[in-house]
């Protein structure tokens, strides 16, 4: 008799001869048996059945899902299509839909369709809270949470990628369906293990932007399944997403800032030239850090790099302009995005608006978002933690004070204001310090169809 056991995120297979070579398994000399990543469970069980081998499955610990979908919200046509394609692919695949179009509802439909205990893995604690509410309402049942100080497992559970990486080896056998929200996070040395150590035969990935700068999106097919359905922002704008415009605003540095920027930039660039570091190469940045740490001149160049970047990203004029925008949109719900926490707190202190960073406790985050949603707060500042997924349909204005060159980050930030409401016209302002390295960063992050539409325009800041 073949015995399957779930052993710390792997499958321990005893009772097979070495020459039988089950799929996805390797012989483990440490335990004198076969072993496979838990991900291979479905494939292995199908092989055992096909081979006519009797087996005792002690690995599977997931259950049939008892609660049925309680909220009968009619799916939109593209959501029904996405579910059909997911089903057709055997319950393994990725659905690519723009932010705000209702990806989460596709997941709810898929969980109900598969009827197995389900785990939803999300990138942030804000999303944990949001998914918790969604699942509880949709299935009218209690929902477990692992992360942010909680460790409560239930047939429907939400966790973060960090917690999934840490704990999947313990609870990876308890779910038959796993949903990876914002699944572009999954490829990577650590998070990948969350998918490898999970036994769930049914796997759904959700994202608006599967592409990654490092090209590792290719591994998603192995970890989750292929892309089974895809729709772009421009295909759904108007009908399912809010109409929107984007405006890039060039901001001049003050004379003092400009003088300091030029000096610091020169120190940094001169060092790069003298040391022969090519930042464009794959190891460029780590080469720079390594060389910078070896000499006084290097440390000075590193400090100069940081200062010139700080001047460009947090130019005083940007905050002046933000003041004008907040006045202009005093009756709208505004999200202010920054690249770093210090600027987010500076915005908060200067304009007396709430801020959400990784240091904000869950309870306070929830309260801020709830008050933002109800209109008690008109503005919320944040660094990166609200980039993804957080659902505030009332938000209609996004102001990007600073950010990275990541296309994904920029599209996700736009997505925060795209959830459709009657008569809503969303707008995203991007403040860019002219004549600095930030201008090219801005060019890089706008390389997406969402920023090439008719609604995109540029302007210079008013003096």
């Amino acid at each position: 008799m073949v015995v399957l056991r779930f052993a710390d995120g792997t499958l321990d297979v005893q009772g097979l001869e070495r020459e039988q070579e089950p799929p996805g398994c390797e012989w483990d000399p440490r335990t004198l048996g076969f072993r496979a990543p838990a991900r291979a469970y479905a494939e292995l069980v199908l092989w055992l059945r096909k081979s006519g081998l009797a087996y005792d499955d002690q690995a599977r610990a997931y259950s049939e899902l008892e609660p049925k979908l309680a909220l009968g919200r009619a799916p939109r046509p593209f959501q029904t299509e996405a579910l059909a394609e997911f089903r057709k692919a055997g319950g393994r695949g990725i659905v690519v839909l723009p932010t705000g179009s209702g990806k989460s509802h596709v997941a709810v439909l898929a969980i109900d369709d598969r009827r197995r205990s389900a785990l939803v893995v999300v990138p942030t604690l804000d999303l944990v809270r949001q998914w918790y509410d969604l699942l509880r309402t949709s299935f009218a049942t209690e929902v477990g949470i692992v992360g942010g100080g909680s460790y409560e497992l239930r047939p429907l559970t939400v966790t973060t990628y960090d917690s999934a990486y840490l704990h999947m080896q313990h609870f990876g056998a308890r779910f038959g369906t796993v949903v990876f929200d914002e699944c572009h996070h999954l490829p990577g040395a650590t998070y990948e293990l969350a998918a490898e150590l999970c036994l769930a035969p049914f796997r759904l990935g959700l994202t608006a932007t599967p592409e990654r700068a490092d090209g590792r999106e290719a591994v998603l097919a192995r970890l989750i399944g292929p892309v089974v359905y895809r729709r772009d922002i421009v295909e759904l704008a108007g009908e399912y997403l809010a109409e929107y415009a984007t405006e890039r605003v060039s901001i001049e540095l003050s004379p003092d800032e400009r003088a300091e920027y030029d000096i610091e930039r020169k120190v940094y660039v001169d060092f790069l030239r003298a040391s022969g570091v090519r930042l464009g190469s794959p190891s460029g940045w780590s080469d720079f850090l390594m060389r910078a740490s070896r000499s006084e001149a290097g440390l000075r160049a590193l400090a100069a790099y940081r200062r010139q970047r700080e001047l460009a990203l947090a130019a005083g004029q940007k905050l002046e302009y933000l003041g004008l925008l907040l006045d202009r949109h005093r009756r709208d719900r505004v999200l202010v995005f920054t690249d770093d926490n210090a600027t987010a707190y500076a915005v908060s202190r200067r304009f007396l608006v709430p801020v959400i960073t990784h240091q904000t406790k869950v309870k306070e985050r929830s309260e801020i978002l709830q008050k933002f949603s109800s209109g008690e707060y008109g503005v919320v500042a944040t660094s990166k933690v609200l980039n993804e997924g957080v659902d505030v349909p009332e938000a209609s204005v996004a102001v990007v004070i600073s950010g990275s060159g990541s296309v994904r980050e920029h599209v996700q930030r736009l997505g925060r204001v795209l959830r459709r409401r009657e008569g809503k016209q969303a707008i995203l302002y991007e403040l860019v310090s002219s004549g600095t390295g930030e201008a090219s960063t801005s060019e890089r992050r706008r390389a997406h169809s969402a920023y090439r539409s008719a609604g995109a325009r540029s302007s210079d800041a008013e003096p």
Partner: protein
Amino acid sequence: MLSPDHVRVRRRGGELQLLALKGELRERAVVIARDLADVARAHVGKSRGELEEAWEGIAVSPRERKLSLGLAKLVEDASEFESGDAEQAAELRREVFALAAQKRATNALSFARDAILDEVATRRGTTPVALEAELYADLRSAQRLIACQAPAPEALVLGYERAQVQAILLRAVRVVAEVGCASADAYRALFRQLKFRRLLYRVHPLEAGGYRLEIDGPFSLFQSVAKYGLELALLLPALEACQKLRLRAEVRWAHQGKPLTFAYEPTVRAGAEQPPRARDEVAELSAGLSELGAGWQIEPAERVLDLPGVGVCIPDLVLRRASDGAAVLVEVLGFWSRASVWQRVELAQKGLGERLLFVVSSRLRVSEDVLEDADEAALYVYKGRINPRTLVRHAERLLDHGGPSPRRAERAR
């Protein structure tokens, strides 16, 4: 614990080597350690942000940078910080932001920040400046240093050197440790840690005595992952407790494609200078057996019997019959758990290739019959104290017959 960012290493081919602190640099390390601790003590009552800023002001050369950061981390670990009242700060923010939002939405003129702060400060009977300071009093940088218990500078530097090894192991994908323990209990402590940390291993005896342990985790079979790095790092004290230790680790360091090899052989080991001491019940049994006189030689066992996939068995004594040199290994389980007895039973049933006698208290409610069919192992269940004569009878039966236990045979007669 230090992080890999605090470690001073160099790469030589495929090797990762710790940079030794010697000569002038060691003297500098002591000076830096003293400065860091002095600054911390001088900042008791001030904020973490202020302390960190003051530490930044301590002049160090580029080559001393990591050393300084590592020592600062150790001083920080030896310090106590107090957080501001998070509830109070959150309540203040609630009040300020709600008023600001209200004014912004209703006031047609430009936003008047100072007026809002004035209004809230007046309501609370404080000043706008104090109010601003309280607004984010619960942030990490605002935490107040209340005590610094950093050890003497020389001890801090020594601590840094030892902590570096553990920090490197955080990135380990596999560890090969050659260990030698002077007692069965020391081996047991090590294997208990391995089990507790859910690590897998292969055991190979070394010709010169001791064992080579190849340690990693379940998933390591498929990919060289640093997932088990924390467990391997936490295992280090148990490895260092062995009398002999030579360690080689494969580590994923920085952005190096292939893992590098890191070698470590401690010069001073905690507890290594103390002679091994057997548990009281084993020492008592050993003395009792010796008193029985000729016929049997008693010696401490230094064996690790491993059955992959099932577990290890670490006997306490070797009982050798003088007439023919035949030996029985004795493991005294005493009052351990029933689970440990059942694990030994499973090991014995699958065959360890040695004659083994497990000595178990009757309080564990295990019958000697469970191993009656085994040829190579037997259970001696005792009441009260272990009787050396009965134990010897079990040993003789095991060597001569491999049949039913003496008690069962007596009952049958």
